[in-house]
C-alpha cells in the first residue's frame, strides 16, 4: 500500500488524544461517598458491563475515526494491473471451436485453461469497463446477457463465467467466424474503439495471414498436444439380407453397431465385415478413447435392407422426366418403378407433369411440374389450374434456401384451401407438403421446371442433394420435416472425458446419434485441427499497465459508519436534557428537510374514481390556476382509494351515485383522517336538491360522526374569505343557497356544495366552458371558481384568515 501524501501520517500522533482524554478522565474523577450506593450497585448489576463496554467502544471508535481521517488525508492507494486500452470497453473473443478439446502439456483441456485465463484478463479490466464476450468457431455466437443486453461490466462477466462450464463446439475455428464477431462488435460499440482480444490456441484452420490483418490483440492458449486424425473411407453393399462393409482407407478400428436402444461391439474392422441388415443402425469405428469423442471417431449410417418402392410417372417421356428418373435411380435406398401414361400405380409415386387423375390407392404423391404442367389441384377460385391461367404472381420465380444451398424455384401453385391442408410451406409461403382432406393422402410438391436441369447444369449440384434429402423425409415421416431440428435429442454419444455442454447439444454439435420424433440421424465428429501456429502479434501484455486504485471510497464508508457510531454512543451516554436537545435537533433538521421537500412538492389534492373525467380535468385546471393566483402549489388531482387518502390533505368527491356505504373500519379510517387534519370537499355534480349523493353523504356522516350532522356554513365563516372575499355561494346551478359542512373543534372537516362548483368551470380542449351556468351567467362562474379556490385554500391553510391581523383589511374591503 502506498500513500499519495504520506506526510499526513504524522497526524496519527493525534491518536494519543482520545487515549489521553480517557486517562485524564480517569485521573480527574471526583470522589463521592454516596449514601445511595446500595441502589447504585443494584443498578449496575445490569448496567456496569454495558457502560464499561460503551466507554471502551467509544475509545476504540474515536481511534478508528481519527485513523480513518488521517488515512483519508494521506490517500492510500494500491497499484492494480489494468488494461488501459479497455477504458472505452472491451471485447474478448474466445475460441470455442474443436481445437479447444486439445490438452496442454499438463494434460489439462485447453478449454479450461482458456477459461482460467479469461477470468484473469477480466480481473485486470478496469472495474467499470463494459464489454462483451463472443465465442468464435466458424461462426460467431453471442451469449445472451440480461434479456438481450450483450454488454456488461467486467466484474459481472467474471461472476458469470466462473460458474459456467467452458463452451466447446463441434466446429472448426475459421477467420470467417472471427470476421462475423468483429462485425457484431462494430454493431454494438459503434464509433468506439474497444480493446479487442482473441484468445485461441490458434489452430491451423485459422488463416494466419488474414487473422493478422484484423488488428486484434491475439493471445495464444498454449496447446502442447497436436493430434492428427486418420480419415476412414467405408463402402457398403447389400447382398440380399447381408450388408457388407468394406474398409477402403484408414487403419483397422474397433467396430460397434449402434442401434436406437443398444450398442453392440462387433470386433475389429480390418478389411471387411458382413452384417445382417436392419431397418436402422449406425456403424461406430472407434478412435482413441483416451483422446476424446471428437477425434478419430467414425459414425456411419448403415444402409437399410428394405428399399422404398417409388413409382415415377409421366404422361410422356420428356428430357425432364428422364433427368428426374435418372436422379432417383441413383439413390440406392429407392427401388424406382418407371411408368409412362395410364393411371399411376403404387402407394408412393412421383408424378411428373400434368395428370388427369389422382389414384385413390396413392398415400404419398410428389408432384413435379414441367413448364407446360397442368395440375390436378384446384386453385382457390375453383378453376382448373393450367399455365395459361396462372397469374404473373403465381409464375414469379423465387429463391429457396435449402441445407444444400439456394435453389431457384420457377413456379408454385395456389391450391384450394378447402380441400388441401398445408402441412409445410416453402419459405415464401407456397405449400410444399399438403394433405388431401378427401383421400387423406400426403402430397409433396416441387414446382421446379425440371426441363432446366438438362440445360442449367449449375442447378444440379444443389438439386440432387435437395431431392434426396426431401425424398427421405417424404418417405419417412413427412410431417416432421420442419421441426426436427428443435426436437432433436441426443440418444448416444461416444465416450469422452468432456461432457457435452447444453449449448453443444442444442445445436447438434456433439457427435452421436440423435432422435427427432420417430426419425433418427447421426452427427459425425468434426475433424480435429492438425496443429497450431504461433501468431506474430501478442499484445495483451503491452496493454497492461499499473493503475492506482485509491482506498478512499472504502475509507469514506468507514468514516461514515464510525461517525454514526460515535453519534449513537453520544446519544446513549449524554445527560437526558442534552439527549432531548439532540433529538430535538434531529427533529428540527428532519422538519427542515420535510419543509424543504414540501416546498418542492405540491400540495396533494385527491379524488376518488367516482369523479367523472371532465370534472377531474376541471379540478386540475383550478389547481393549475391556483398556482398562478395564489402561493398554493396544488398537485394535479390524484385518484385515491380510501386507504390511500392519507397521501393527500384534501380529497374532492363529486359523484352522481351514492357515497358509501362504508364498512365500520373505513368509517373509522375516515374519522381519523378528518380529525387529524384531512379535509373533504363534496361537490354535487347534479346541482339539484336532495340528490342520492347528497343523501348518502349526510347518512354516512351521521355514522362517521354520530351525533353530528351537516350544518349550514355561515356567510361570515372564514371559508368565505380564505382567499377571495365572498358573500354568496355559487356553482353551475344554485340548488342550495348555502354550503354545508361538518365542524369539529372549530375546524371544518368536510364541506358539501350542492351547486356543482367543478361543473361551472368545466372546459373543453379548446379552453371553452362547456356547461352553461344559471341564473347569473359569467359572474356566477367566476364566483364558483373563487369559492372552490377558497375551499382548496382552506384545506391547505385552515382558518389563518381568522387571525386578528386580517380583520381590519377584511372590514375595509367589506365596507367597500
Amino acid at each position, binding site marked *: 500500500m502506498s500513500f499519495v501524501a504520506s506526510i499526513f501520517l504524522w497526524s496519527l500522533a493525534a491518536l494519543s488524544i482520545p487515549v489521553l482524554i480517557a486517562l485524564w478522565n480517569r485521573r480527574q474523577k471526583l*470522589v463521592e*461517598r454516596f449514601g445511595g450506593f446500595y441502589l447504585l450497585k443494584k443498578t449496575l448489576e445490569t448496567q456496569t458491563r454495558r457502560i464499561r463496554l460503551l466507554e471502551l467502544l467509544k475509545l476504540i471508535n474515536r481511534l478508528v475515526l481519527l485513523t480513518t481521517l488521517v488515512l483519508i488525508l494521506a490517500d492510500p492507494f494500491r497499484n492494480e494491473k489494468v488494461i488501459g486500452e479497455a477504458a472505452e470497453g472491451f471485447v474478448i473473443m474466445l475460441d470455442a471451436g474443436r481445437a479447444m478439446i486439445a490438452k496442454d502439456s499438463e494434460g489439462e483441456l485447453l478449454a479450461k485453461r482458456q477459461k482460467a485465463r479469461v477470468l484473469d484478463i477480466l480481473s485486470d479490466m478496469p472495474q467499470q469497463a463494459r464489454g462483451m464476450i463472443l465465442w468464435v468457431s466458424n461462426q460467431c455466437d453471442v451469449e445472451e446477457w440480461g434479456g438481450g443486453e450483450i454488454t456488461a461490466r467486467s466484474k459481472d462477466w467474471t461472476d458469470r463465467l466462473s460458474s459456467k462450464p467452458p463452451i466447446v463446439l463441434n466446429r472448426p475455428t475459421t477467420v470467417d467466424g472471427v470476421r462475423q464477431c468483429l462485425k457484431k462488435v462494430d454493431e454494438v460499440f459503434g464509433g468506439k474503439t474497444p480493446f479487442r482480444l482473441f484468445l485461441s490456441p490458434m489452430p491451423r484452420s485459422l488463416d494466419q495471414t488474414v487473422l493478422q490483418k484484423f488488428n486484434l490483440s491475439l493471445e495464444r492458449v498454449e496447446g502442447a498436444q497436436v493430434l492428427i486424425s486418420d480419415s476412414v473411407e467405408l463402402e457398403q453393399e447389400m447382398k440380399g439380407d447381408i450388408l457388407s462393409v468394406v474398409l477402403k482407407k484408414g487403419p483397422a478400428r474397433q467396430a460397434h453397431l449402434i442401434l436406437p436402444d443398444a450398442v453392440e461391439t462387433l470386433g475389429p474392422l480390418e478389411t471387411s465385415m458382413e452384417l445382417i441388415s436392419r431397418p436402422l443402425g449406425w456403424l461406430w469405428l472407434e478412435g482413441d478413447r483416451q483422446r476424446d469423442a471428437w477425434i478419430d471417431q467414425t459414425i456411419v449410417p448403415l444402409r437399410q435392407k428394405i428399399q422404398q418402392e417409388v413409382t415415377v410417372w409421366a404422361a410422356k417421356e420428356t428430357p425432364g422426366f428422364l433427368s428426374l428418373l435418372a436422379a432417383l435411380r441413383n439413390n440406392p435406398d429407392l427401388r424406382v418403378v418407371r411408368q409412362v401414361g395410364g393411371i399411376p400405380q403404387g402407394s408412393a409415386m412421383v408424378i411428373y407433369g400434368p395428370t388427369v387423375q389422382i389414384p385413390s390407392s396413392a398415400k404419398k404423391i410428389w408432384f413435379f411440374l414441367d413448364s407446360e404442367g397442368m395440375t390436378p389441384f384446384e386453385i382457390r377460385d375453383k378453376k382448373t389450374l393450367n399455365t395459361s391461367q396462372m397469374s404473373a404472381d403465381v409464375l414469379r420465380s423465387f429463391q429457396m434456401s435449402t441445407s444444400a444451398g439456394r435453389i431457384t424455384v420457377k413456379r408454385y401453385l395456389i391450391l384450394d384451401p378447402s380441400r388441401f391442408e398445408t402441412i409445410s410451406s416453402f419459405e415464401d409461403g407456397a405449400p410444399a407438403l399438403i394433405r388431401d382432406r378427401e383421400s387423406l393422402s400426403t402430397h409433396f410438391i416441387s414446382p421446379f421446371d425440371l426441363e432446366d436441369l438438362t440445360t442449367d447444369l449449375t442447378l444440379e449440384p444443389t438439386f440432387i442433394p435437395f431431392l434426396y434429402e426431401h425424398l427421405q423425409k417424404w418417405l419417412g415421416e413427412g410431417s416432421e420435416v420442419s421441426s426436427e431440428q428443435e426436437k432433436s435429442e441426443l440418444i448416444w454419444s461416444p465416450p469422452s472425458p468432456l461432457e457435452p455442454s447444453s449449448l453443444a447439444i442444442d445445436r447438434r454439435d456433439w457427435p452421436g446419434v440423435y432422435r427427432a420424433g420417430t426419425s433418427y440421424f447421426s452427427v459425425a465428429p468434426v475433424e480435429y485441427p492438425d496443429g497450431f501456429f504461433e501468431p506474430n502479434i501478442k499484445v495483451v501484455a503491452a496493454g497492461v499497465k499499473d493503475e492506482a486504485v485509491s482506498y478512499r471510497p472504502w475509507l469514506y464508508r468507514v468514516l461514515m459508519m464510525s461517525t454514526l457510531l460515535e453519534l449513537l454512543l453520544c446519544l446513549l*451516554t449524554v445527560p437526558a436534557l442534552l439527549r432531548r436537545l439532540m433529538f430535538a435537533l434531529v427533529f428540527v433538521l428532519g422538519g427542515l428537510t420535510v419543509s424543504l421537500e414540501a416546498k418542492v412538492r405540491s400540495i396533494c389534492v385527491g379524488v376518488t374514481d367516482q369523479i367523472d373525467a371532465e370534472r377531474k380535468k376541471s379540478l386540475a385546471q383550478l389547481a393549475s390556476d391556483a398556482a398562478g393566483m395564489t402561493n398554493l402549489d396544488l398537485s394535479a388531482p390524484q385518484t385515491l382509494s380510501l386507504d390511500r387518502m392519507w397521501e393527500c390533505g384534501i380529497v374532492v368527491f363529486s359523484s352522481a351515485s351514492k357515497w358509501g356505504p362504508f364498512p365500520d373500519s373505513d368509517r373509522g379510517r375516515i374519522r381519523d383522517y378528518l380529525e387529524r387534519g384531512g379535509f373533504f370537499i363534496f361537490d354535487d355534480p347534479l346541482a339539484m336538491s336532495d340528490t342520492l349523493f347528497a343523501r348518502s353523504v349526510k347518512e354516512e356522516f351521521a355514522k362517521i360522526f354520530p351525533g353530528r350532522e351537516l350544518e349550514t356554513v355561515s356567510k361570515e365563516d372564514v371559508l368565505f374569505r380564505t382567499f377571495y372575499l365572498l358573500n354568496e355561494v355559487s356553482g353551475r346551478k344554485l340548488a342550495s343557497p348555502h354550503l354545508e359542512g361538518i365542524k369539529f373543534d372549530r375546524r371544518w372537516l368536510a364541506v358539501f356544495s350542492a351547486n356543482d362548483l367543478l361543473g361551472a368551470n368545466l372546459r373543453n380542449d379548446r379552453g371553452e366552458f362547456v356547461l352553461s351556468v344559471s341564473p347569473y351567467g359569467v359572474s356566477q362562474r367566476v364566483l364558483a371558481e373563487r369559492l372552490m379556490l377558497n375551499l382548496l385554500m382552506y384545506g391547505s391553510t385552515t382558518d389563518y384568515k381568522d387571525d386578528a391581523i386580517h380583520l381590519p383589511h377584511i372590514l375595509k374591503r367589506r365596507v367597500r
Partner: protein
Amino acid sequence: MQIAEESLSEFAKTVELTGTKFLEGFHRSLRSGSGVEFHELRAYGEGEDARHIDWKRLASSDRYLVRQFEKNEKTAWRVWVDSSESMTYGQKRSWAANFAGSVLYVAQTLGDSWSLLGQEKLSLFKAYEELMRGETLSAFPKFVDLDLRRGDRLVLISDFFFDLDEMIASLEAVRDQVSQIVLVQTLDAKEMRFDFKDVIQFDDRESPSQLILDASAIKAGFLKSLADHQGRLKKALSEGDAFYVFEDQLNLIPSQLAEFFGVA
C-alpha cells in the same frame, strides 16, 4: 458515645420548638374541626361523611383514608430510626433524629404513649439523647422479638437502602399486631435526583466498595432503581399504612410533620 450537654439541650430545644409550632397549627385545626382528638387513619367506607377523607393522604398514597377522631383511646408510637452509615450521607441522620424527636415530642404533648423501639421506658430527654447518639438503634430490629401491642403505631425512619426482604418479612410477622405501619424514607437531594456530572468515583459508606462511573450514563438507571425500590416498600404495606418520602432538609420538618400527622 457521650453527647455534650449543650448539644443535647440545643437538640431538645430545636425539636420541641418544631413540635410546638406544629402543635399550634394542629390545635387550631382541631378547634376549627370536629372538636375531637385526632386519633388515627382508617380506610374510607362507603356512605361515610366525605369531609373526613384525608385528602392529602389521598394525594400522596392514592388511598381513601378517613381521619379518626377519638377522645379516649390513646396511640402508642413505636419509633425506629435507622442509623446505618448510609444515613450519614447529607443531613439524613440529623434530619431523622430531629424528625423522630419532634414526633416523640408531639406524641407526648398529645398524651399518646411513645417509645423508641428496643429502648422502652425512656424519658423524653433520654430519648433525645439516644436519637442523637444513634448507635444503639443502628441494628435493624426484629419486630417479633419486641413487645408490640395491638394499637401500636410502628414508625420506621430510614433511607431504606438495604435489602428489603428481611424487613418486609419481619413486618409481615407483626402486621396483625400493630394498628398502622408508617414508613418514612428520608433522602438527600442527590439521592432523590442523582444530579451528578462527569465520571465520579462512588465510594460505599458501609463497605470498602467503590465504583467509577459516568454519572450521566447511570442516572436514568439509578432513578429507576430508586422508584422500583420505593415501589417494593409501598407494596409491602397494607391498607391504612403510610409511606412518606421526605428530603433531609431540617427546615422542612414542620411541613413534613404536618404531612405526617395529616394536618393541613
